[in-house]
Structures are given as structure tokens and as C-alpha cells.
């Protein structure tokens, strides 16, 4: 900087030796610099996207055995089923509590579970299923508290690892979190082989700590949990696992979303219906009257039919597995059979959808929704 000179205004121009004051800045110079900075920034973003895509698709998979990767199996299976089908949406309580094959037997129409992990966000499963909902389909949602604005992008990305089509079809709401999630994918793919090599003992210990139920091996090709879950809940219910049906937890935004989804299904010629998830009876804090009041409230709020008696979904200890909303195998059979009966009674018998139970495979005729 040149020597400072004081001029009449009292302002010293650091750059002009005569102390004269320049009027304003150099607009062109500024624009040029801004343009260059923007070019560098944008190119870096593009480069980052390329690095991410390369890591996502080309580097060896890391999450192929993970629990959440079942979402790919479920999605592929959902895509393949052409005929009218039952789709059960939700999160892990659906994975643990619904046996798709048994449902298929009971209803005589294909059934697909779509949902696995609460951390991925309930909304994700709704969004991803939309494209594959067709005429005559029955979409069942065991309603539970959910934030329909939340997408667990980091978990979603690990679940759909390597699948470019699923990446590109991420719902717009989930794209926001991709930057944070994508970075973890890139770095983990870079460092994980090194980590495994450097700390084989730690790796083994970490692997041995994972409940085998939370791996992809627990599922069949359709993404239905097939691992035998014989143990049942024996402990008293911890305070943090206690549940409560509380209307305050079901925002108007949530209800509006469900009603919109119902309208969407109707447009597609499908039926959307609500049920309740399985919960260990001891874990529910509501009295019977409160449960009835909640059920009444819900039926008033939603346009979709609620097909199950809320009391029927409270399960005894013997049918609950490792969490108060997770059924063991007998529990899942019980719940699935009950749900099938509810669908028959509330959907088929009320002529929302007609069906021919004795015929295997595609059996639903034209759907009609009042």
C-alpha cells in the first residue's frame, strides 16, 4: 500500500499517491472476481458430485450386508409385482411384524412390505412407493408418530448403496441432506479397507456385537424378515420404551399428508387404509377409554378407513421380540393373520376391492372406492 495521504475530506486513499478519492469500486473487477470464484465453486461441486458417484457406484460395497440394505430388495420386488397387490408401509415395526407370504396366502393376492428403519424417515417409503401403486392395490399403513418432513438421508444412502437408479429417484426432500450423507459415504469407502486392515481384531469385535437379526441375511428375496425369532420379551418395560397414543403427537400436517396420500391412491384406483402397529400391551400407557378416544379421533381426522380395532394390536409379552414394537415369529404370524382378516372384512367385504380368494395369484378385479 502506498503512503497514506490525507485529503480534504479526511479520507486517506491507501492506493493513490496523490490522495485523491476514487468514486466507488471497480464494478467490472468485482464481477470478474465473483465470476471466477463462482466458477471454482461450481467446478468443485461438480467434481465433488463425480467423486461421490464414483465412490457410491464403483468402489467395493460396504453396506451390502446391512439391515437397511433390505430397502433395495423390497423396492425391486415392489417394482416387479404387476398385478393388484397389498403394500404394507411403515418402518421396522412392519418389518418385524408382518409376514408377507402369510398375508399372500390369506388374501390370495401378492403382498409387499416396504419399510425397514425408522431412521430413514417414514416419508421416504411413502414417496418411493408412489410410482408403483396401481389400480386395485391396497396400501396399508400402521399409523404411528412420524415427522413427514424428515428424511434420514445418510441411512438411505447406505441402504441404496451402489444403486444409481434409486439415488436418482431420491425424493426432493431427501436431496437436501445428500451433501452431508454423501461425504460420509466417500470417506468411509476410502478409509474402511484401511481400517479393516489395520484393526482386524477391533473389526471382529465390532461385528460380533451386531445382532444377527439386523443383517440382510434375516430377509428373503422380497425383503420379508424370515429369520426365526423365537425369543420373547421377558424384562419389565424400560421407561424410555413406554408408548402412548397421544393425539398431540399426530400433527395436522401429518394428517393432511395421509389424506393427500389417500386422495392420490384413489386417483390411481387403489385403496389406502390405516391400521395400528403392534405394541407390547404392557408398554402402552393409555387406558382402554383413552385408546377408544384416540381411535375415534383418528377415524374423524382421516379420510382413509381405519380397519383394525386398536385393542387387537396390543400384543402379549410372548409375541414380542427385542423391542416393544417388534414381534417375534409367532407374533408376526398372529398380527399378519389378524391384518388379513381386517382387510377382508373392511376392504373386500365393503366392496372397496373385490377379490376371489380361491384363485391364486392375480385375483383382484376392478377396484371401486366409494
Amino acid at each position, binding site marked *: *500500500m502506498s503512503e*497514506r495521504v490525507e485529503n480534504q*475530506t479526511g*479520507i*486517506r*486513499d*491507501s*492506493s*493513490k499517491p496523490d490522495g485523491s*478519492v*476514487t*468514486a*466507488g*469500486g*471497480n*464494478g467490472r*473487477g*468485482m464481477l*470478474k*472476481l465473483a465470476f*471466477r*470464484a463462482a*466458477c*471454482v*465453486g461450481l*467446478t*468443485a*461441486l461438480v*467434481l*465433488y458430485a463425480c*467423486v461421490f458417484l464414483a465412490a457410491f457406484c464403483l468402489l467395493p460395497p460396504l453396506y451390502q450386508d446391512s439391515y437397511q440394505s433390505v430397502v433395495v430388495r423390497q423396492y425391486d420386488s415392489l417394482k416387479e409385482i404387476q398385478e393388484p397387490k397389498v403394500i404394507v408401509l411403515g418402518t421396522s415395526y412392519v418389518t418385524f411384524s408382518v409376514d408377507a407370504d402369510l398375508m399372500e396366502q390369506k388374501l390370495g393376492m401378492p403382498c409387499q412390505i416396504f419399510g425397514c428403519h425408522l431412521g430413514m424417515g417414514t416419508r421416504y417409503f411413502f414417496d418411493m412407493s408412489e410410482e408403483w401403486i396401481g389400480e386395485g392395490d391396497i396400501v396399508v399403513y400402521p399409523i404411528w408418530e412420524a415427522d413427514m418432513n424428515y428424511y434420514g438421508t445418510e441411512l438411505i444412502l447406505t441402504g441404496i448403496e451402489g444403486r444409481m437408479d434409486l439415488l436418482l429417484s431420491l425424493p426432493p426432500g431427501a436431496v*437436501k*441432506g445428500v*451433501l*452431508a450423507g454423501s*461425504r*460420509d459415504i*466417500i*470417506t*468411509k469407502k*476410502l*478409509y474402511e479397507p*484401511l*481400517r479393516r486392515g*489395520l*484393526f482386524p*481384531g*477391533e*473389526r471382529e*469385535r*465390532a461385528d460380533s456385537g451386531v445382532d444377527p437379526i439386523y443383517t440382510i441375511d434375516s430377509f428373503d428375496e422380497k425383503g420379508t424378515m424370515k429369520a426365526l425369532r423365537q425369543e420373547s420379551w421377558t424384562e419389565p418395560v424400560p421407561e424410555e420404551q413406554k408408548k402412548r397414543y397421544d393425539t398431540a403427537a399426530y400433527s395436522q400436517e401429518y394428517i393432511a399428508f395421509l389424506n393427500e396420500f389417500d386422495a392420490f391412491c384413489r386417483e390411481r384406483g387403489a385403496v389406502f387404509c390405516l391400521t395400528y402397529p403392534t405394541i407390547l400391551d404392557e408398554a402402552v400407557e393409555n387406558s382402554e377409554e383413552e385408546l377408544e378416544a384416540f381411535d375415534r379421533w383418528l377415524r374423524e381426522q382421516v379420510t382413509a378407513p381405519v380397519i383394525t380395532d386398536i385393542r387387537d394390536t396390543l400384543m402379549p409379552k410372548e409375541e414380542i421380540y427385542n423391542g416393544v414394537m417388534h414381534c417375534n415369529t409367532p407374533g408376526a404370524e398372529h398380527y399378519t393373520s389378524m391384518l388379513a382378516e381386517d382387510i377382508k372384512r373392511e376392504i373386500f367385504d365393503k366392496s372397496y376391492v373385490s377379490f376371489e380368494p380361491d384363485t391364486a395369484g392375480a385375483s383382484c378385479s376392478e377396484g371401486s372406492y366409494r
Partner: protein
Amino acid sequence: MLFHSVEFWLFLILVIGIYYAVSPFFQWPVLLAASLFFYLYAGWGMLFYPLFTVLLTYWSALRIGANNRRMKEQIRAGGRELQREQKQAIQARYRRIGRVWLYAALVGNIGLLFLMKYAGFLAENINGLFALFSLEAALPVFRFTLPVGLSFYTFQALGYVIDVSRGLYEPQKNLAKYALFVLFFPQILQGPVGRYPQMERSLYAAHRFDAGEVAGGLKLAVWGLFKKLVIADQLGRAVDAYFGNFEAYPGIGAAFGGCAFVVQLYADFSGYMDIAEGVSQMFGIRLFKNFRNPFFSRSIQEFWQRWHISLGEWFKDYVFYPLLKSPLWAGLGKECRRIFGKKTGKEVTTYAGMFCLWFFIGAWHGADWKFILASGLIQWFYIVSGKVLQPVWERIRRGLHIREDAGWFSCFQMVRTFCLFSFAMLFFRASSVGDAWKMIRLLVSPGGFEPFAGLLYENFGALFCAFVGICVLAVVEVMQNRGISVRERIGTLNRWQRFAFYTAALTAILVFGTYGITDPSQFIYFQF
């Protein structure tokens, strides 16, 4: 508004745009408005504290300046006829008056600082002391929310008043201009503690848009972001994991915790400084250089000449030297010389002065014994023991035929300095002095590698990213220490090479940095 938050960069783009678009006459008012907005963003109530400091120090400095002027005028009016004694009498009279204004500024500002930061600590200690003798002294322990940057701007403003009282320069008459000096947004939160003559030159000057300067500032700021996001915050995860459960990691784990924290602290603090310096440069304003490759220091004394330089300089100029020159210390020196002899007596006096200096430096960091020990008394101990034992080390070195300028010996000294500093920083980062002692005990207890391996395994991702960053940082630091300007080197590349370099650097931040939709983590020195 943190420097690595999106809102700060949007704010900065807006301010730069306005700054260079308006007439130069309005450039510094734009900066003042931006600085006020920046501070107000932390909360409306917060602005009271810096405004109090600004008004009190501005007013005191004006009175002191006027007083100094009157003194000079009177001496000048007396001309050559004035006897020396008469001159001294005039000076003494005016200095007495000047001292009143100076004390007003000191008491007001240090009082506020003390009340906000140290009153609770003092009350707690007095209560504790009484409890030791089974006496009851239930002094109320107040804990206030500290205004951001309190210690930094208070020291900057006090330095200004003291300099004016010493007659080093004339006070700034324009309140708004002075307010800008204290509140200038890139430096108010964490320094550097600026000096008025250095800043005044560029702070109020008209600046034409200089693409080279702005781009240079931007590059420096991005480098600071790299240090913060890639090294400090990533390393911070592993450091937090260690300090959060340190008892599980004996032996090498404790050594790792101390060393990793020092690197984190450096990357965090110097990263902030780089951003502050870069942002200031974008406005054509130069800030004080606060770090000079401290890890190349061969002794703790040298380390502190390269680490947080502005704070060290401030304490040296405004605390240490005045203390040594004070009548109290002169008396102490006399007594020491009488007891220990001339040479040792002088050394003892100096070391006692250094003890006070380091005590204050430690206390500046925070109202807690852990800070007083970590950044104060342990550092004092290192420096004094280094000086006292210097002849012994010299003899050992000569006995072993080690050349002082041998490369490996320099490396050894650097590593030794780093380890000593890291040891002290265990106190800094630990939640209490008691925890730090436990860590030290664990440091020397055999714990095996297994628990530490678990820590590394759990935090491998963060450490991996930090390691990539540290490698880059090491190369840059080596180059800087050899006097090579990295920015100039990059400047010699052709346009496309430069473009590729900047793009790769930015991509590296995106890939290895810590950021996301959650709130950005704070800078460590933010709390002071």
C-alpha cells in the same frame, strides 16, 4: 455468526459488495455498520458491553490526550526559561490528572471483565478456602453469560488508552472511527489483539477494489476454513471421545489425547486467524499476524513468541514491563540482590515478575485453575526451569559432542517442545484439574494398546480425514518456515493450473471437512 457458517459468508459477500460500491467516504462507516450488525447478531443485550468499553475508553483517551496537549503547551509556553524542576513539576501535575482518567478506564473495563468472568471463580475459591478451615463463608457465586470476545476487545481498548496516556499517539477524536477500531468484526470475537497505530493506517483509508488483494484474502480465508473444518473439527471428534471417557484409555491413549488436542487447538485458532486476516484483507485492512509456525519452536520460550503473539506482546508491554519498573518490584529487586547476590537476585526478581505475567496469561484464558495452570504456571515453570538448567543442558550437549545446529537435534528440540506443550494442554482440555491429574497418572500406567486401538477404530473416519489435512498443513508449515510463500508459489502457476489447484482444494474441503445441516461447531477460543 460463526466464520464457517453459511450466513457469515452471505453477510460477507453483501458487505464487500456495498463496501466497494459506495463512495470511499462511506467505506469505514459501512464497516462500522457491518460490525455492529455482526455483534448484534449474537443478541441485542450483548452490545451493551462493547459499547460501554468503547465509550469509556474513548472518553478517557480524549481526556488524557487533551491533558497531554495542555501539558506540552504549558511547557512550550514556558520556553527555555523553565527550570528542569519546574518542568518536572508541570509534568507530574498533568500526569497525576492523566492517571485519574487512565485509572477510570482501567477500573471500569477490568472491573466489568472481572465481574463477568472472575467474580464467581473468586467467590468459589474464597468459599473453598474457608471450608478448609471449617469456617462458613457463603459468598454468592455468580455465573454470567460472557459477551462474545469480551477479553479480546477489552484488552485492545485498554492497550489503546495506555498508549495514549504514554503519549505514544494522539487519541482518535471521532467516536465512530474509534468504535470501528474496537468492534471491527473480523477480529472482535477472537482477536488478534490489535494495536491502534497498526490498524488505523488501513482501517479508515479509502480502498479501491483490488482483485488481487480480495482474491488473496479469499484464499487465506479458505485456507483457514480448511484448517477448521478438515483438521480441527475432525480431530475434535476423536479428542472429545478421549476426554469424554479418558479413564478407559490408559497409557498411550493419554499421550494421544494431549497431542491431538494441541493440533486441534492450533488448527482451530490459527484457522480462525487466517479467516479473520483473509476477510480483513478483502477490505484492504491488514491484521496483526498471530501465529508464526509455532511447532517449529525449539523451546517453550520460542513457542510463545510464535503462538498467540498478539496476546503475549500485549501482556509484555502492558503488564510485564510496567510491573518490573514498578516501585514494588524495584524494592523486591533490591531485597533479592541483598539476599541472593547481584546476578541471582536479578534473576529471581525477573522470574517472580514472570510468575505474575504467566499467572495473568493463564487467568486470561478462563476463570478456572486448569487454565491458570495450563496456559500460565506450567508454561512459567518450563521457561524458568529451561533458563536455570540451561548451563547443565549445554554441558551435556557438549559432552555428547552434539552440534547445536545439527538437523536431528533441532527436530528433537521441536518434538520435545511439542510434547511439553501437549502435556500442559491436558489441563487445558480436561474438565477439571483433578481429571488432568488422573490423566497424568494414566499416562504413566501400563494400559496396553488394546483400549487405544478401540478409540482409533471408533474414530477412524475422523482421524483419517484429519490426517489428510495434517499432511497438507505440515507441507505448508514447512514451506512457510523456510520463508516460502505458498500463495506466491501458487501465483506462479498458469491460469489453468491455478484453477485446478483451487478446485481440488475446495473439493478436498467438501470431502474431508466437517459440516452439514446441523449447527457448526464453535471455535475453541470463542469462549474466552
